[in-house]
C-alpha cells in the first residue's frame, strides 16, 4: 500500500515537473514573439491614429493618481501609455495614448487614440475588444470610429436619435453599453491630455 502511494505520488510529480519545465521553455521561446507582436500591433495602431507622425517619444510614467482623477470625472478607465508625437521637422505635433476603459459589455476595451497639438482628435483604433459579435463589435467598423475623427471637442456624448452637433456620436443600435464605454474612454483620454497643458 505504502509503496503504491509513493509510486503514484512520484510518477504524478514527475509528470508535473516535466510539464512545468517544458512550459517554462516554451514560455521563454515565445516571450519574444508575443512582445514583438504586441509592439507591432500598438505601433500600427499609433500610425493609424496619427498618420503624419514622424516619430513617437516616450513621455515617462503615467502619474499614480490618474485613475483616481479620471474616476472623479466619472470615467472608469486607465491611461496605459502616452507618447509625444513629433512631425518631420521635429516639432511637437500632438500625442498618442493607449486607453483601457473598464465599462465594456464583454470586459475591458483597449484602444489607441491620437490627439493633435491643438486638441483635435485624430482618430481611434482598437487594440483589444471583446464585445458581442454583430452588436458591440460594430464599434470596430470605420463607420463608428470615423465619428470621432477630426473633431475638436472637450467631451463627446452619444445619442440614439441621430447626431446633430459636433460633439455627438450616433450610438450603435443595441449596444449602448459599448458606445458608452468607448465614448467615456475617449473622453478620459481627452481629459488626461487637457491636464497636461
Amino acid at each position, binding site marked *: 500500500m505504502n509503496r*503504491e502511494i509513493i*509510486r*503514484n*505520488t512520484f*510518477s*504524478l510529480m514527475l*509528470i*508535473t515537473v516535466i*510539464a512545468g519545465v*517544458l*512550459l517554462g521553455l*516554451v*514560455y521563454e521561446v*515565445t516571450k519574444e*514573439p*508575443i512582445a*514583438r*507582436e*504586441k509592439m507591432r*500591433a500598438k505601433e500600427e495602431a499609433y500610425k493609424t491614429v496619427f498618420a503624419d507622425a514622424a516619430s513617437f517619444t516616450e513621455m515617462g510614467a503615467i502619474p499614480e493618481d490618474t485613475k483616481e482623477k479620471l474616476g472623479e470625472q466619472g470615467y472608469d478607465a486607465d491611461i496605459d501609455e502616452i507618447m509625444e508625437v513629433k512631425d518631420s521637422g521635429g516639432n511637437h505635433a500632438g500625442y498618442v495614448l493607449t486607453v483601457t476603459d473598464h465599462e465594456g459589455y464583454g*470586459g475591458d476595451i483597449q484602444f489607441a487614440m491620437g490627439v493633435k497639438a491643438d486638441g483635435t482628435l485624430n482618430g481611434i483604433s482598437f487594440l*483589444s*475588444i*471583446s464585445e*458581442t*459579435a*454583430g*452588436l458591440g463589435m460594430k464599434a470596430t467598423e470605420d463607420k463608428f470610429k470615423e465619428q470621432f475623427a477630426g473633431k475638436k471637442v472637450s467631451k463627446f456624448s452619444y445619442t440614439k436619435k441621430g447626431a446633430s452637433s459636433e460633439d455627438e456620436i450616433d450610438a450603435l443600435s*443595441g449596444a449602448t453599453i459599448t458606445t458608452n464605454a468607448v465614448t467615456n474612454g475617449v473622453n478620459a483620454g481627452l481629459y488626461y491630455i487637457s491636464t497636461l497643458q
Partner: protein
Amino acid sequence: MNETVKRLKCGIVTENPTFVQMLGMCPTMAVTTSAINGIGMGLTTTVILILSNMMISALRKVIPDKVRIPAYIVIVASFVTIVQFLLEGFGPSLYDSLGIYIPLIVVNCIILGRAESYASKNNVWLSMFDGIGMGLGFTIGLTSIGIFRELFGNGSIFGKNIMPDSYQPVSILILAPGAFFVLACLIAVQNKVKLTKARKAGEAISICEREDGCASCTNTLCMGKSYTMESVMGIKEKPDKKMTVGEALKEKSKDKVKEAEDNDREREV
C-alpha cells in the same frame, strides 16, 4: 477498411462530437457567434486533442491507473498553455476573440473523454488519427453552427456581407439566447432523424451512450473516481422494450441519478 481511415470517419461522421455525441457544449455555444471563431476554436481544440492523445497514448503504460485522471489533466493543461502562447504570439486576433475559452479547453470533455476512452487503450499512431478525426469533426460542427448563426444573425459569412441590404438580421441568434435556441433545434432535428429511422426499421431504438453530452461532460473528468463512459451515462444495456427517444431519455436520467448514488456508495475514502 483500414483502421486509420476508420478512425477519421468515426470522428467526422459516425461519432461526430458535436452532432452525435453532443460533447463540449460550453465552447460550442460560447464561441460560435461567427464562423471564423468557430473554425478557430475548432482547430485550436484539434491541435490540442492530437497532441494530448499522442502523449497520453505514449505514456499509457507508465501512468499508474489510480492517478491517471490528474496526470491527464496536467498533460492537457500543459498543451493548452503551450498553444495559448503560440496563439498569443502568432495569431493575436484569434487569441483576442476566443479569450478565456482557450484556457477552458482544459475542461473540455472531448479531450478528457478521448483520453479516457481511446488514447489510454490504443497505440500512438491510431490515437493520433483518433485525435485528428474527432478534432475535425468538432471543427466542422463548430464552423457550421457558426456559419448558421452569423449568416442569419448578422447577414454575413466569415465577415463578408452576403445577404441583400434589405435583410434585417435576426440579432438574437448571435446573442446568448440564440445559442440555446440553435442548439435546441439541432438536437430536436437529431432526435427526429433517429426516431424516423427507428420506426422504419421497426426495432427498439438504441440510445447512444454519450448522447446527453453535458451530463457525460460533467463526469468524464471526475478526478480519478471510478467513472467510465458507460457507468456515467447510466445505460449499459440497450433498452429491451420499444421506446421513444423522449421516454428513453427519461429512463436514462432516472438511471443516472441512481448511478450517481451507487457510485457515491462505492467510492472509497
